[in-house]
């Protein structure tokens, strides 16, 4: 969005909250409102969320005590339908507590609990006082993201019990599952309260894979963090490294060559495609249809071997770098992509047709794991999970980046058609299945459309030095949804703060809501249909 549009927001806010906004700043498509008093935050955030129709995209806390600001909290909102991010910036001064905004913005709860664990600041008014990131064995007086906490600290362990919500009544049983699951999947704990087979309540306990990524980044060189970003979630390596690189490129005002942008996009879509295919196979497995799973498994393997032929890594590690990309796509690889995708797409259509014609498979998907649209909106759900419930969000279109140019490709008739399509979506596993099928085809279409590579630069000019304490937001749409990375530079070419919020962090919240009318045996299928990352959530 241009400066003029953003200034329009500033005028509206200043008129609505006279004297409460100390300063307004601009940074590309971001508008920053610096507040005077933390007590104004709930009301102003509530206004931005409800009246300005902006979803809470992330909440970033920084420890700026050494610079005399105390702790600072940035509430980042994403304006619906506009390429604009609205920051509400609240300096806490010397206080160790901040007012909770959850009565106005329900989706803020997890962020506030995260801030309490990592910074030791108490969200006054948030009723959920349980630990989130650091489990019950963590001592109560150590806060990893404070600047005086050393990365290598080995904190002692203490005894503790995590209080799950208890459901009481005749015949209610609890089923504890995890963190070690039956299959080859990531660690997490699910606590079902059931009456017979019916799920009465599901509580998800995560952060078993917490590796201290944000703290670690503060000790690494900016170009090393690209490799770290790839490993936030191995299957989202291109999306996360793209978001990180774009944040740094925005700060340093690096001009990424057109060719590099297109190559980045080709790899991003290859990533989306191979993962969607994998998820479709996983859904077939969890519905007990082994043949469909096997066929999708073969296609995923072919896509992964195409990945390897193009960049040397089967899961697309090593594609991005600050300022551009590492691998080129020459004439030979272009032909390889054209040839392989043609064959894969033909087989994919066959397998999709086969799955769609099996009523025993499709019946399992229908009505399973229905996401309530209101909950999805309130909690700020993104990606396939939002789109399946009729919420039309797609970072590639809403905030065009890299080689994406989706909005301009739609005629008004197509826009209306898409809107009608959105309204029809039921939010169940069937809707997610259909969306994934369509998105695989779209991905291949986007890739083929981008192969007309011109220019020859793979990397823009990267300045030797970075100005300290500059910040920017980077974003990308992975196969799971929007991933958002906020970067602030530090002294001596370091990174002062690296805040990551993947789609999984938003979307795990909906799990408990969408299985409340399901039976336990449907849970694996519902879980797979949402396809969330544990590592990407836990960081």
């Amino acid at each position, binding site marked *: 969005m241009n400066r003029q549009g953003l200034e329009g927001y500033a005028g509206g806010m200043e008129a609505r909250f006279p004297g409460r906004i100390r300063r307004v700043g601009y940074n590309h498509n971001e508008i920053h409102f610096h507040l005077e008093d933390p007590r104004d935050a709930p009301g102003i955030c509530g206004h931005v969320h409800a009246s300005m129709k902006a979803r809470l995209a992330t909440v970033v806390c920084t420890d700026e005590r050494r610079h005399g600001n105390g702790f600072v909290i940035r509430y980042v909102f994403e304006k619906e339908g506009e390429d604009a991010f609205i920051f509400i910036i609240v300096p806490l001064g010397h206080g160790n507590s901040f007012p909770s905004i959850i009565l106005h913005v329900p989706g803020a709860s997890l962020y506030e609990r995260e801030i309490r664990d990592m910074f030791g600041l108490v969200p006054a008014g948030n009723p959920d006082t349980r630990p989130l990131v650091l489990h019950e064995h963590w001592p109560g007086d150590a806060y990893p993201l404070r600047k005086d906490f050393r990365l290598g600290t080995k904190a002692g362990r203490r005894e503790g019990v995590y209080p799950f919500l208890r459901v009481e009544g005749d015949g209610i049983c609890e089923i504890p599952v995890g963190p070690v699951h039956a299959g080859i999947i990531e660690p997490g704990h699910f606590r079902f309260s059931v009456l017979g087979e019916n799920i009465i309540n599901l509580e998800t306990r995560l952060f078993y894979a917490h590796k*201290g990524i944000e703290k670690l980044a503060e000790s690494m060189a900016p*170009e090393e963090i690209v490799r770290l970003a790839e490993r936030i979630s191995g299957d989202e390596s291109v999306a996360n490294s793209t978001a990180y690189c774009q944040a740094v490129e925005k700060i340093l005002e690096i001009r990424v060559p057109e060719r590099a942008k297109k190559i980045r996009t080709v790899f991003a879509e290859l990533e989306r495609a191979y993962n969607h295919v994998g998820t479709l196979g996983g859904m077939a497995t969890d519905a007990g249809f082994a043949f469909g799973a096997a066929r999708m498994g073969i296609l995923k*393997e072919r896509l992964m071997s195409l990945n390897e032929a193009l960049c040397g890594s089967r899961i697309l590690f090593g594609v991005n770098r600050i300022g551009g990309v590492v691998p080129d796509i020459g004439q030979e690889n272009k032909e390889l992509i054209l040839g392989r995708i043609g064959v894969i797409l033909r087989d994919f259509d066959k397998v999709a047709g086969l799955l769609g014609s099996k009523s025993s498979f499709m019946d399992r998907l229908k009505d399973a794991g229905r996401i309530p649209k209101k909950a999805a909106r309130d909690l700020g759900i993104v990606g396939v999970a939002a789109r399946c419930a009729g919420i039309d969000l797609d970072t590639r279109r809403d905030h065009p980046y890299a080689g994406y140019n989706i909005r301009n490709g739609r005629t008004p008739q197509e826009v209306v058609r898409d809107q009608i399509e959105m309204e029809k979506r039921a939010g169940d596993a069937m809707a997610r299945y259909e969306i994934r099928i369509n998105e695989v085809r779209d991905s291949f279409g986007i890739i083929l459309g981008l192969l007309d590579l011109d220019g020859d630069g793979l990397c823009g000019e990267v300045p030797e030095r970075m100005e300290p304490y500059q910040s920017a937001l980077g974003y990308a749409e992975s196969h799971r949804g929007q991933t958002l990375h906020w970067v602030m530079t530090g002294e001596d070419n370091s990174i002062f703060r690296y805040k990551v919020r993947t789609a999984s962090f938003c979307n795990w919240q909906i799990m408990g809501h969408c299985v409340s009318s399901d039976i336990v045996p449907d849970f694996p299928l519902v879980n797979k249909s949402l396809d969330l990352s544990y590592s990407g959530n836990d960081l």
Partner: protein
Amino acid sequence: MGGSGDILGNRLEARAKDGLVRFPCGACPSVAGRYEEIGSELREKIAKMFGRSLAIREVDAGSCNGCEIEISALNNPVYDIERFGIRFVSSPRHADVLLVTGPVSRNMEAALRRTYEAIPSPKIVVAVGACAADGGIFGDTYATAGGVGRVVPADVYIPGCPPRPELLLQGLLLAINRLRQEPGGRGQASSGLARS
């Protein structure tokens, strides 16, 4: 991978003093394209030593899920690891091998230890990936133990970020070979395993 050698390198040298098995990797030219060959050898060994089937319990101890993608790929119709008598089991009580990925996050330490203890002896522990070796890019921090060997006794480390399917197979082969070649090396392990 461009310019990433230092932070992702498979720093297994550090482990050599423990007498642990290691083999060079990176791009692993020694195993590239040898999946079938390694698999056949593995099948023969499993037939002799494990009564034809080897059961694996996999535990993700805080990996980025990259290793899980490759381990899962072993089950797809292309690699189809069950042909060689290898299967992944749900319960540690049924397992011969504990396959662990990740640097062992602090929040997974207890679960990993309990899974290890639940596996009946003799048992083999295989650590998969650069993180499982020494913490990899995630290192040894407030949130990680800095490698599987810090939490449970690992027998074999498979390097790579992530290791390819054939390298995973090669690591399993190495692990069961080691049981035969070093009787007494792991207490009662090898005497209990060798059935031929």
